[in-house]
């Protein structure tokens, strides 16, 4: 297949890692993958092309309106690729009626000036096929396609046994880890969950170790959010300072796995809207590549359906401190779950598998 992805790439956010993996896996499988546009010096390993007609399908990967190209390019794209061969991957559930979950929305008129109906009309006008990275799309005219995937080759450190993994993780056969817990991601609709997690950890923070949050807006609530009255980018600088939480800037997509591997724990948190819609992200899978114990803070049903049965043990549940203390007491059991989950992900969610799924969708 010759696939042309259309999206605005950003080395610190959204789908860059997933698209880079499609390029890599596609090459190995004999597919040709490129991103629409002029070659970006920032992503030399990602081929770009504006030769639209050379491709079989254009796949729009949409988070925000800016993911669509600007007009002269857009016109070129629409003229060069018939609608039947244009596909949208709706990464944030825009192609739905307006949904509010806590402070989280799928339509943010205040920020992008587009009302809910425009997302539906707009997607319908651009593409024949709308895919959403969930197993359970709400609309009959959207199809589930998880899009993001797991790359077994990206696993930071491989182990033959859970015992070996647990010993290394505990610093017995490898360097002790720099952090107790890290989180890599922007503070957009994450604070309520992060706050609960930190509060729960506070009484045992000595045994967890240093905590580090990286990404945007963990240190302050942006002025524009206050001006527009946009909730969900809250933070509590005093609480973070009092807990000694280290705040760092963004981590480039190609450094995330290694960075997370510097911590014993890494939470997997999805936006409330994503939990509601069952939407997965790059981080859903990528966290399992790092040499860390994922703390799954996701709905149980989602954990089982995406990660398989072994991952049940990795679900944090209500008693966060108890869960972490149990990991510290018997890490081998948890590493056993991680190794089994990695195997499950390799079987069910590899990028090879994603290509097969895409091919089946296109065949239909």
């Amino acid at each position, binding site marked *: 297949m010759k696939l042309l992805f259309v999206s605005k790439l950003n080395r610190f956010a959204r789908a860059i890692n997933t698209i880079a993996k499609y390029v890599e896996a596609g090459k190995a499988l004999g597919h040709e993958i490129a991103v629409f546009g002029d070659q970006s010096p920032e992503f030399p390993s990602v081929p770009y092309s504006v030769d639209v007609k050379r491709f079989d399908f254009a796949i729009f990967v949409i988070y925000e309106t800016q993911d669509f190209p600007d*007009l002269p390019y*857009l*016109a070129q794209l*629409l003229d060069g690729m018939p609608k039947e061969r244009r596909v949208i991957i709706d990464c944030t559930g825009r192609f739905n009626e307006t949904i509010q979950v806590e402070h989280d929305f799928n339509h943010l008129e205040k920020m992008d*000036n*587009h*009302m809910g109906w425009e997302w539906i009309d707009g997607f*319908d*006008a651009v593409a024949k096929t709308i895919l959403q990275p969930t197993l359970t799309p709400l609309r009959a005219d959207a199809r589930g396609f998880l899009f993001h995937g797991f790359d077994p080759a990206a696993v930071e450190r491989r182990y033959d046994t859970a015992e070996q993994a647990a010993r290394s993780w505990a610093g017995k056969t490898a360097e002790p880890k720099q952090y107790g817990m890290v989180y890599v991601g922007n503070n957009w609709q994450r604070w309520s969950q992060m706050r609960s997690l930190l509060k729960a950890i506070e009484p045992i923070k000595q045994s967890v170790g240093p905590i580090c949050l990286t990404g945007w807006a963990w240190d302050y609530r942006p002025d524009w959010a206050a*001006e527009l009255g946009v909730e969900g980018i809250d933070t509590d600088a005093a609480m973070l300072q009092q807990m000694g939480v280290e705040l760092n800037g963004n981590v480039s997509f190609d450094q995330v796995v290694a960075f997370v591997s510097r911590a014993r724990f890494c939470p997997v948190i999805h936006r409330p809207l994503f939990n509601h819609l069952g939407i997965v992200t790059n981080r859903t899978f990528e966290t399992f590549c790092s040499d860390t114990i994922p703390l799954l803070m996701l709905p149980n049903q989602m954990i089982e359906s995406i990660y398989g049965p072994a991952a049940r043990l990795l679900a944090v549940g209500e008693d966060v401190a108890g869960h972490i203390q149990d990991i510290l007491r018997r890490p081998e059991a948890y590493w056993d779950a991680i190794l089994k989950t990695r195997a499950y992900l390799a079987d069910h969610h590899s990028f090879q598998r994603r290509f097969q799924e895409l091919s089946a969708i296109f065949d239909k």
Partner: protein
Amino acid sequence: MRILFVMDQRVDRGSIQSMSSYVRAGDEVGYEIALYGRTDPRFPTIRFSRDVGAFDYVVFLVESCRNWMSALRMPRIFAEVPRCRRAIVDADGMYNQIVSTDNYDRNYQWEHIRAEWLAHYRIVADKIFQPTFTPREPGVRKVLFYGYDPAQQMPPEASPGKAYDILCVGHNWWRWRQISRELLPAIERVRSQLGAIAFNGSWWDTIPAGAAELGLESAFGTDPEWLRRLRIQVKPSVSYTEVINVMSTGRINIMTQRPLFRELKILTSKYFEIFSADTTPLVMIDPDHAELVYGPAGRELALCNGIGEKLVDVLSCPKKYRDIVEEVRRHLLAHHTYCNRVQELVAALQE
């Protein structure tokens, strides 16, 4: 004929008042005019439609942003209405060479940004209209676009009481230099002879978040302490449905225009809207331009020299100025109603 406008509609800024007037005037002269979108309670006087294909022409009303003409919105319009039936009203003079006034206000900072705009325009439409008497670029057609809506006229007997001697209803967007160099020093000189003063609108006492990042800090210059010293109240912006009423609470209303617009002689909604209020409008434009728009009586309302004395004179001789304003209104009725504007727009679209 059916005309569909597409714009970045905001309830308290831009050209939304003119949309309301186009819908009303269109009905009066037999054209169906609507704004792209869904019925919205914030815009009770505007007819909305999403049935793009049912319209003969689509007119994009473009101000100083274009990101609202997003790829989410445009493909549907492109698919249903061919380019020859699409037009742009270039309200902020973006379809020009780079124009910079006194190294302050400008349409573009960089040539490559201008090139991107023009490329965008070429895809969107093949007709470009500008609301000025003298377009500078070949291929741009003069369409004054904004007008006077007699149906909005506030009769004195229905007018709210006068709470202010002076009102300035509008946003502090490239206005501060004129306000701080001309208006405020004049007010300072005669402040003891003036009653309450208010500025209604955004950014008179704060700079919006992100202005510095966008290199637009100078567009929002302000001095809240000076305003406080002059006892000038800063009030929030008002919805277009309330603006005539609010203006009518002032004995004098002052209209300012950004320097770029004064340079390009671009008209705005405010030129005419201010004459619908029960007030004495004073316009901070040069007298020749005031005469061109408002007729000979308009010169008397141009606020450029002797500003302090003029403010005091208007407050002390209301009858004299009421007569001048009435004469201007007669001129507007003869030359600048929205019924005229609708006909002019239709003619321009059909050319």
